[in-house]
């Protein structure tokens, strides 16, 4: 019994010691190609970006409100990697952090992760 307790304790100590070791879980590589002020303070957007996006998504979808502040396309146009042109994939702004946090967003099943040209649509004749 005592032997088991010691083994467990030793295992825990080992785990804790190594968790603190740098490099075991690579930190997300956040490159910001266009430095500047985000639409929200950094700590707020890090914690609550999903709430903003979700709120905006319902407004846009159901009420046709297309303000830019919390629009996903605006996030993408600022944060797309200059190398890949995307927010996902290798070094992608969204993906690197989400990989680190082990959270899989399903935005990209439908949304385009690369910024695109707005289709030209003139005023109604």
């Amino acid at each position, binding site marked *: 019994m005592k032997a088991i307790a010691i083994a467990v304790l030793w295992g825990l100590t080992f785990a804790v010691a190594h968790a603190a070791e740098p490099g075991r879980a690579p930190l997300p590589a956040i490159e910001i190609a266009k430095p500047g002020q985000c639409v929200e303070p950094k700590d707020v957007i890090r914690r609550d970006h999903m709430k903003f996006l979700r709120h905006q998504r319902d407004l846009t979808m159901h*009420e046709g409100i297309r303000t830019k*502040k919390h629009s996903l396309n605006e996030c993408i146009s600022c944060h797309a990697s200059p190398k890949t042109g995307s927010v996902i994939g290798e070094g992608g702004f969204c993906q690197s952090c989400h990989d680190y946090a082990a959270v899989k967003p399903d935005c990209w099943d439908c949304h385009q992760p690369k910024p695109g040209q*707005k289709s030209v*649509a003139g*005023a*109604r004749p």
Partner: protein
Amino acid sequence: MSERNDDRRKFLAAAAAGAGFVALAPGIRLVEIAAAKPDNEAVTARVRWGMLIDTTRCQTGCTECVSACNKENHLGEVKKPRTDAQWIRKIDLKELKTGRALSLPMMCQHCANPPCVDVCPTGASFKRADGIVLVDRHICIGCRYCMMACPYKARSFVHEPHTDQNPEVPRGQGCVEGCTLCVHRVDRGGTPACVEACAAAGHNAMLFGDLNDPESAIAKRVREVKTTQVRADLKLDLGVRYEGI
């Protein structure tokens, strides 16, 4: 920055309206530009978007509207006719009794009482206040009941993964979709891509506008000539009407 853009847009709209007055452009034009909604305002039921299709002008064999839709919404060319999405299609008709032939585009009719909205279990299929019927892909589970319910076969199921979406038209595997009336263009004051293409090809068979605005071209037209709602027996009160059926 975004607010400045809004201001600029409002200024431009006002300037355009003013120019309309000066140039004595047709009244409908300036009224509709003035009605373009600011980004931060919700759509209202004061507007009912609709379309009038003149089948006497629609050419058999012409698929400009279909190509424009595929291009605008990044649907791609129809390679697999059984499973590829078709938001708008050309139907060639021949009256059985008389042999009279005609051709017309068929798409979501944007019903005021849409069966797809009634049957959708999650509420993903919904009608916007301004009459545009849409699928909220965030809550669509892909059950396909709306496809069973639609009398116009206006809906397609996304059978394969996609990566080449138009940033303004998200779409992906496992959800049902259909004509959005190019809502992303309409909200910015534009017209649907099919209507634009039909006009560009010189056919002018498609007229888009606000049915609730008595001064709009479409409202005037439906007041003047007899127009038809397809399967009017179902009493769905369609946003899309046809002339010459």
